[in-house]
């Protein structure tokens, strides 16, 4: 077997610059987990359905299992590890998930944290129905979603002032 050709790609992850050489077929999810050892991003279905692998690219949530790492030349990527607050503690969404008991096994959680972090940027006070819609692309097999919906609303409060 011939060794696979490597392709060079440079991007930032959580603000840190990376210059990698990876096979072209390396999914971003695998580049993050295996090449960069950022194992916060979880991989469930690997075909775009479950949402566990969601990361932010230039601020917008995307499925890291549906994009090749080499395609993200020049991008700014944020993973769940980058959703902390400025002091390095839990960010507003993480704090709300803890307070509201919005996770059980935690497998789906990184995808929710990233998705909700981006959502709150332009939705400062979501209703329960809006919160439900915001997380409709993420699957959770444990919680039954009720506490996650509560956490989305609580995270908005923490982030946008009341009760921080």
């Amino acid at each position, binding site marked *: 077997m011939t060794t696979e050709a490597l392709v060079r790609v440079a991007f930032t992850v959580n603000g840190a610059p990376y210059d990698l050489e990876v096979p072209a077929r390396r999914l971003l999810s*695998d580049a993050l987990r295996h090449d960069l050892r950022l194992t916060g991003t979880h991989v469930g279905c*690997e075909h775009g359905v479950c949402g566990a692998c969601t990361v932010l690219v230039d601020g917008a949530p995307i499925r890291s299992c549906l994009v090749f790492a080499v395609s993200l030349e020049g991008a700014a990527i944020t993973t769940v590890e980058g959703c902390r607050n400025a002091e390095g503690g839990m960010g507003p969404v993480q704090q709300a998930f803890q307070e509201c008991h919005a996770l059980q096994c935690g497998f789906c959680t990184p995808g929710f944290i990233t998705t909700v972090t981006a959502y709150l940027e332009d939705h400062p006070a979501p209703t329960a129905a809006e919160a439900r819609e915001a997380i409709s692309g993420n699957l959770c097999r444990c919680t039954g979603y009720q506490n996650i919906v509560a956490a989305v609303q609580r995270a908005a409060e923490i982030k946008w002032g009341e009760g921080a």
Partner: protein
Amino acid sequence: MKPSPFSYHRPRTVEEAVELLGALGEEGKVLAGGQSLVPLMSMRLAAPAHLVDVNHIPELDTVAVTAAGVRVGATARHARVEKDAAAYDAAPLLRQGLVNVAHPTIRNRGTTVGSLVHADPSAEMPAVLALLGGSVELRSTAGSREVAAADFFVGPMESALRPGELAVAATFHRPPPRSGSAFVELARRHGDYALCGVAALVTTDHDGAVTTARVALISVGPVPVVVDVGAAVHGTGTAFDTERLAGLLDAAIDPEADIHATAEYRRHLAHVLAARALTEAHEHAGPTRDERAS
């Protein structure tokens, strides 16, 4: 669940991309948003030898509104087209269709032009193009050609795109004045492909009576099925005769059974959803802005 190896190309201009695609021929495939291609490759249902990544060609990342309609460049993401206020103003059916395409996260990466080329018979945007009319602009080393919406969708997962060609943009026509549109569909789960979906476009006269009414249906034929349902409009022009509507639809659609629904159920959905979409479209058809102002 990992794609097989391929050679990767990252052109920076359309010219460079077209040269590459011309040289690669059948071996080369365009990578746009990857929201259909990457899962197919991960499941090993597709194993292209070469991918030409068009995501780094700035000239393709455009949404432009003209007198004729909305021209969407190849790398404009679904989300961008959906949120574009001028595009919504010119052809509301774009946004009405797009909010039914998968989840917001998929729409952040998937492209509208990619969805047209992919030509999934359950996809919303091919129906939107088929109903509004318009064209897809294809470029190759041999030059440019413009394929009309009616000729672009050839069969399930098959468009008129030939090996070596890049779809650079699609133009969706602006509907006539005093038109209204709507897109309704039913899916098993929020964000899934629809069991059946209907786009409707209704145009009215100065008194609000329907003058033309057409629908485009998805998931009930090999390509989006466009049906002129003008004959189902009541004499008064204010409502639709559901029985006549069902007859017109049945003559045009050919639903198939699969694990999600029987053919009969899809046929039922076509009738119900078309009536709903037409009523909603009629409600949206109002006087033009100039007429309202005068």
